[in-house]
């Protein structure tokens, strides 16, 4: 039997089986014959014999064997104990925000100043919004208007609050299905649905608008609502330029080509694939160990095998 099956057979975890082997309570087949490579296989006869002694053995390990890396007492003890306090780092002070723009932000700003439509594709939290804010300043300085659309009402409300602080209450409006505040303002926050409706039924309201920002333009791919973005891009008046902000997607170029083909004019694509701060991904195993991808895959295979063995256990016992 392999280790996962053994664990299921004895009703203990794979880690415990390994411990039994380590402590010499169990021997793998190859060890016994002392020849050839280690197969890691265990004999069923041995297991049958061990089964009687097992409760005493595991008891002697105490609680610690269960979650050895992160030992925690029993529940009832916890309630009485004082709560845990986190480690605090020496200086947890907010750093001074550096005002240096990233290359992609500069490139985007230049293309927008040239009056072009732009698609910016960059990872989350890398400062795409700043591009839209710079654009808003330019547009308003030129005495023109801009519309900022976002995919969710909650986000529109949030943006409205943010932009009110940035640009002043009278400069900013909010139009969603259920609210309309200051709809004549030069800087309008909208849901994409409302923008689409204006394009079709009230294009006169968009005469002074020079740019529309589509935040999260990859919503084009949303099964239910994507069509709203399609219609907005197809029906926005031709003098309105587009700034599309997208999460990292592999086909930003294709989106740009399409927009350019239906609306005419150049559409510049600005791609920032690199994260400002690199990301490390790790997996937390059921026993609490934190491991990298390779080890995680190995453990998962073993876990799957163990679950299968657990399902088969009943049948074995009947045999």
């Amino acid at each position, binding site marked *: 039997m392999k280790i996962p099956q053994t664990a299921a057979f004895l009703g203990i*975890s794979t880690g415990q089986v390994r411990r039994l082997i380590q402590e010499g309570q169990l021997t793998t087949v190859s060890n016994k014959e002392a020849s050839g490579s280690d197969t890691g296989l265990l004999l069923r006869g041995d297991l049958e014999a061990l089964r009687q002694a097992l409760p005493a053995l595991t008891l002697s390990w105490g609680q610690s064997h*269960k*979650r050895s890396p*992160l030992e925690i007492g029993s529940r009832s003890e*916890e309630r009485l104990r004082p*709560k*845990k306090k*986190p480690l605090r780092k020496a200086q947890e002070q*907010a*750093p*001074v925000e550096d005002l240096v723009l990233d290359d992609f932000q500069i490139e985007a700003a230049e293309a927008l100043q040239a009056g072009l439509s732009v698609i910016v594709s960059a*990872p989350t*939290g890398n400062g795409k*919004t700043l591009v839209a804010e710079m654009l808003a300043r330019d547009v308003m300085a030129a005495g023109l208007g801009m519309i900022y659309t976002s*995919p969710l*009402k*909650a986000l529109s*409300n949030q943006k409205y609050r943010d932009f009110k602080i940035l640009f002043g209450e009278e400069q900013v409006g909010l139009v*969603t*299905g*259920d*609210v309309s505040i200051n709809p004549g303002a030069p800087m309008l926050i909208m849901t994409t*649905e409302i923008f689409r*409706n204006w394009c*079709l*039924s009230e294009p006169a309201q968009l005469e002074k608008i020079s740019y529309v920002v589509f935040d999260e333009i990859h919503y*084009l*791919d949303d099964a239910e609502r*994507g*069509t709203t973005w*399609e219609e907005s891009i*197809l029906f926005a008046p031709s003098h309105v330029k587009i700034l599309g902000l997208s999460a*990292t*997607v592999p*086909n930003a170029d*294709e*989106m740009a080509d399409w927009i350019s*083909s*239906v609306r005419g004019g150049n559409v510049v694509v600005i791609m920032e*694939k690199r*994260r*400002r*701060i*690199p*990301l*490390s*991904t*790790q*997996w*937390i*195993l*059921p*026993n*609490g160990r934190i491991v990298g*991808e390779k080890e*995680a*895959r190995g453990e*998962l295979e073993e*876990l799957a095998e163990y*679950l299968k063995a657990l399902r088969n256990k009943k049948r074995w016992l009947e045999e």
Partner: protein
Amino acid sequence: MELTEISCSEIIEAIQDKLPVLFFVFSRGRTEVLAQDLGQDWDFLNAREKKEVGSKIKEAEAEQPGAFSGPGWRSLRRLLLQGIAYHHAGLLPPVKYLVENLYAGRLLWVVFCTETFAAGVNFPAASAVFDSTRKWDGHDFRILQNREFFQMAGRAGRRGFDRIGHAFIRVDSRFPEQTGFFDDKAIEPVSGRLMISPNTVLSLLRYKTDEEIDRFLNENFKMYQLKKRQGLLKEEIEVMAGRISEIEAGLCSENGTLTCPVERARARKQLKRLRWKNKNREKDLLQKQIALAAPKKCLNLKKCMALSERLKQVQTYSQTRKQEYAAITQQVDSVFTEYREVRDLLEKLGYVKGREFFARGIFALELHVQEILVTEIAFSGLLEESEPADAAAILAGIEFIPGKNTRTDILDLPALQQAYLIRHELLKMGVPERFCIWSNLPGSLAYAWYNGATFMELMEMSSLQPGDIFSIFRREIDLLRQIERAAAGNTALIERAQAIRGQLDRDEIALSF
């Protein structure tokens, strides 16, 4: 034995040098359960911070006492004072806003949240933990897409604080096969998702020329991608056809006939097989054919066999491309079919005829949800003739899809019965289900709220969470505004809609900025 499951308290212990953390969980209920669990073991705040949180809470409570009440709030309040929170769509906006504010003020160390916390507004953390990587997408449990994962994991890593951001994926020992592994080089491309709604068709007919409609149908992103793929496939199929005839030209004229030794050997094998299976008639026939054909000696057997093999490969490959080509052609056609079907439906129901608009068509032009159902309810006179509270009850159910555990007090209103019948009639006439989405469940809540019930009372009437009730009413207010525009000229209906809206848009349901 029971499978051991690491608790979130243990996870936090293991990564406590990498806080604050956003703990992504794909069920609202579980965000709360995990937060409570963690709150048993941990308290992250010192006295000064607790005071600060306390005063921010008091500020928010003073502003909107209604939103901050009830047993749910009391337990969240306790957790906030320990530096722990949960955040999901079932909460009222002022509560979510408070959590966001505390997080931005660096007063929360662990936030258990659903996916929406990662959309839009920037809340960076030192690490992102995934309680699991399987999510219910409305049809099935599936593993997160690369795009979804990186959108969320992207929150890990604060500029100026962290050298690297950390993502941790908890392996769920019940579903090990659904543990995600993600690759930022394999992020899914965006594809076009055009869907034709009644409003799309009406808007096109009202505001666009034939040429523009044609462009809309032919040049949307979905079509752009389909046609591009179609073009590539066509080219490939042609190349394959060229290659096939090239290979065929290289084969001798006897290829594939029984005079060719290769084919003959194959036929013999087939003969044996037929004998085995006792298919005598077929066997005899094949035997005769072999006997009739004069065998030919082949000078170039090896080359011939290689070529035949190659031919078969190319043919199979070409076949798969042709199949894909056919499937894509079908999708291209479906865009036009969908448009025609919706247009024909609108003609059949008397909304339009060609470019001519009738009263219903003009009305529906201003609607953006369940256009046909709402128009029919309005034209039945139900909204004007019944009591305003009844009308509010009917409209609350438009486009509401109850979950399988959604319960509300049942209200036996004749007006709801009538709405049900109108919907039933439409379905019988062949209007597709997706244009007739309506439920009677929110009816009792809207009826009570219109008549002055408190938000607490609504909570007691149903299994819905505060955030759900909030969005039912915000959507109804949205719909009422659409109806006001659609009703142009019908002052009675406009006033009725305005009156309902005024009554609904109050207290916890009202927005604040």
